[in-house]
């Protein structure tokens, strides 16, 4: 059954470039949570990286999206999340029409809300959260700017993320 060779780092990078946005969108759509979608997207691609040899070579996109979908559903099951859509709702009409004026306004509102929450964190996590989530800088970029170790920045990002998660969780926002 296994026809593929091991997945190299360069191959993984290609897959992320090709399917990263789709996978994240799937995870976000199913879980409704930005941070969870991030985690599951990472897990999806790491599973792809580890199990690439078992892939039969047919319909790569479907295979990767299947992993993402199943992981997202597993997360919802284990977390016991409320508001899990029913079978009827899930794949019918759940996909909103993005790009509409309402959605653009909503995105702006979400960004402003995120900015406000980032600022409410204690330093240095406020700046870290702003750079990472709002300005979407990478860890290596942030490390270079601050002249710090990447691992230290990664730790700070992780902590900022947990703080933001708690803030969102407290107010009942997904």
């Amino acid at each position, binding site marked *: 059954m296994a026809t593929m060779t091991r997945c190299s*780092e360069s191959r*993984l*990078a290609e897959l*992320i*470039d090709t399917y*990263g*946005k*789709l*996978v*994240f*969108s*799937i995870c976000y*759509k199913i879980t409704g949570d930005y941070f969870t979608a*991030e985690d599951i*997207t*990472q897990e999806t*691609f*790491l599973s792809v*990286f*580890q199990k690439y040899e078992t892939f039969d070579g047919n319909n790569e*996109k*479907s295979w990767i*999206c*299947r992993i993402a*979908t*199943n992981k997202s*559903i597993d997360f*919802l099951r284990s977390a016991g999340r409320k508001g*899990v*859509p*029913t*079978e009827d709702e*899930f*794949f019918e009409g*759940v*996909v*909103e*029409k*993005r*790009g509409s004026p309402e959605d653009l306004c909503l995105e702006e509102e979400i960004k402003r809300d995120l900015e406000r929450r980032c600022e409410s964190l204690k330093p240095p996590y406020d700046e870290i959260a702003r750079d*990472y*989530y709002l300005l*979407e*800088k*990478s*860890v*290596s970029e942030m490390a270079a700017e601050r002249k710090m170790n990447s691992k230290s920045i*990664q730790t700070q990002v992780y902590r900022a993320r947990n703080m933001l998660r708690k803030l969102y969780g407290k107010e009942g926002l997904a």
Partner: protein
Amino acid sequence: MNDYPTEEELNRMIEELEREQLYAPRHLKEDILVKARKIEKRRNKNVQPVSFRMYTLKMAVGMAAAVLLVFMIPAESGNGFEGIGMTEGRWKALEERNLSEEKDRVSLDERIMARMDEKREEAGKLFEKVGNLFRREDLGGNDYEN
């Protein structure tokens, strides 16, 4: 929702999402690649089974050496446990050594006893002399006991 989507449902969802504007955080790629590198490192190391085997081998050799030493090195004489598994020659040598030590001990005991007897005799003579000093007949009078 308890079941995973069917292939048809999944493809429909993918098509619908692709029609819309897709989004992913920019830092996601780097985060994934960093973790993938760690996994790759662990994969390439492949030391775990080998090191466990080496460890087991070392332990076995150490235990065997310890058991061998227990048999090879004779214990101190007098504690009732001699080295097991020694050759006949070594047994004889040990026995002779024990015997000669025994002889030495006996002769030493005898010498000590003889010396003590001498000292006891000397002490006896000394007491007698002292006793004689207090006797009346020596002083020219009656025996004080009477």
